[in-house]
């Protein structure tokens, strides 16, 4: 008799013991686990596939730049005001939330650390992450719109900024916590003060993580609809690049409105807007991944 030849490498790691019944149960469980992943793929493929198919029929340069037709019934482009609105509103929200969020994160990790105040702020930013986006919309409506009596891009941007802020704070806090304290000590030993140390030593080494977190926050904000419903006015006759002057519109709110339209022409525009929005969101998501992949690796190497 020759020694048994091990043909299945896995049998070394997880030997296949037990009766046939137990092995069968194991096989069924493994199959179900793999099936769960396939099940998650189904909606992803269906939705993205359908949006790409329907959206690409109408998506074009003129779709992205032309104003909306004056009647829902008229087929064809465009979504220009909504594209401009989404870029303007999301961009201004990012300009407000990202610097403040990074500063807040710096406070949590570099100044507050484990002090009671920092614990409270950390806890509250977690609570704030869980605030539903529609409630954020109601907040800006009651607090800003009712006081200024104006719906504009700025109010929408404020609502989105409130949604992004806690995300940026928490990512920054977590990323800064990963910076080894030797780096800080080295900087202090060279005579740098705390602000200088944070600016030129700590932040640069945590930058990839922070940037990627901020990009993901932007991606999430760009797709939000609920916070804009009562804040930007939703009037779409012309492209409005002004933050404060006049009402505005956005891709997400256009999709919401046109989805319910009885006219196929409006529904077509909704698909086109959906494809545009998904492209914007995916670009930011992929950028975030690339930042982590490139700079994150260089850092650890």
């Amino acid at each position, binding site marked *: 008799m020759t020694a048994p030849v091990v043909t299945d490498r896995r049998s070394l790691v997880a030997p296949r013991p037990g009766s046939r019944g137990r092995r069968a149960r194991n096989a069924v469980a493994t199959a179900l686990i793999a099936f769960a992943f396939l099940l998650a793929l189904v909606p992803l493929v269906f939705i993205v596939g359908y949006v790409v198919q329907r959206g690409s029929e109408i998506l074009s340069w003129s779709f992205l730049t032309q104003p909306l037709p004056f009647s829902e019934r008229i087929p064809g482009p465009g979504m220009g005001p909504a594209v401009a609105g989404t870029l303007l509103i999301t961009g201004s929200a990012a300009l407000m939330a990202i610097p403040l969020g990074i500063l807040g994160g710096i406070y949590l990790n570099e100044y507050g650390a484990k002090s009671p105040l920092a614990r409270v702020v950390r806890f509250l930013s977690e609570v704030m992450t869980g605030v*539903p986006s529609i409630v954020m919309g109601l907040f800006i409506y009651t607090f800003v719109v009712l006081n200024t009596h104006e719906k504009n891009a700025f109010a929408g941007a404020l609502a989105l900024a409130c949604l992004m802020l806690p995300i940026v704070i928490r990512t920054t806090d977590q990323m800064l916590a990963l910076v080894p304290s030797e780096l800080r000590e080295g900087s202090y030993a060279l005579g740098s003060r705390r602000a200088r140390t944070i600016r030129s030593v700590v932040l640069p080494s945590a930058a990839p993580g922070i940037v990627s977190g901020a990009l993901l926050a932007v991606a999430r904000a760009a797709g939000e609809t609920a916070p804009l419903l009562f804040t930007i006015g939703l009037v779409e006759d012309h492209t409005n690049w002004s933050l404060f002057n006049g009402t505005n519109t956005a891709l997400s709110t256009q999709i919401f409105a046109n989805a319910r339209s009885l006219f196929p022409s409006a529904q077509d525009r*909704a698909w086109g807007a959906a494809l545009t929005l998904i492209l914007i969101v995916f670009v930011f998501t992929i950028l975030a991944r690339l930042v982590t992949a490139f700079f994150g690796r260089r850092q650890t190497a």
Partner: protein
Amino acid sequence: MAVSAPPRPSTPPARTPGLSGADRPPGVVTDRIFGWLALASGLLVMVILALIVYSTVDHAWPWFEKEGLGIFADNWDPAHGDFGAGAMVYGTFLVGLIALVISVPVSVGIALFVTEVAPRRLRRPVVYTVDLLAAIPSVVYGLWAFLVLAQPISGVYEDISSVTGDIPVLETLFADPSKTGLSYMTAGIVVAIMITPIITSITREVFATTPVSLREAAYGLGATRWEMIRGSVFPHSRGGVVSAVMIGFGRAIGETIAVALVIGSSQQISAHLFGPGETLASIIANQFGESTGVYQAALIGMGVVLLAFTVVVGMSARFVIARYERRTGATA
């Protein structure tokens, strides 16, 4: 191996005492200003949260004042001045529950697939793919479910309904399917897809913290992989999975736009899962535009109620995590 945070930074050199004005070493003022700015940004979170609560409660007050405990009554009828939100509270929890029943088994399955079954080099692509589900905006889910999913799925509802027509409990649950397909169930399915990536990513991290020694002990006793998962991974991860489920539930009840498109906008308590309903978030999105006075106060008030629910759910999840971390010493 869990990455543990390095110790907090040691304190920087103390400020040189006794110097003022021009004698101050360079950087002291910048240092102080920067510190104050950081503190102010941190405190901003507190201020905004306080303002959220104050401003919404303030504008919802006429509703609380008029209805009292009647805010939870099942009598939504703005035309006759009745603003009970009972049906919406019911719908919110029902949709959240349906979403969990569908999403939790799938999420746990995907998490197990990533941590236990998939070959190592497939893990990252699988994680990225599932995360893509989270990148699709809510309104796109809504558009797809409203225009593409609803019609065909109403046929499925009718089939299920006719098959279960004589079975005691199911006959009520599955009765009267809506012709349009817009229903609690459709909303629940869409929300389930949307919360799957969240529950998956948390459970995945929790499963990954199962100590190798526990796994090896199970294999050493002759367990199959499934028996190892049941005997070692699940008991170790119970707390983490529970909190993941709660976080998913918190997200589910706050989901607005997709639900607003597919729930069918019917403000009544109904046991028919295939019939139309309404949630707190969806009614705000659907009716806010046409509201004034107490009507609008009621809609804002439902936002307050929703906020309260999500905060309670979120805090309980946090409590579960804290207890679990104390017990196992694991970081989830």
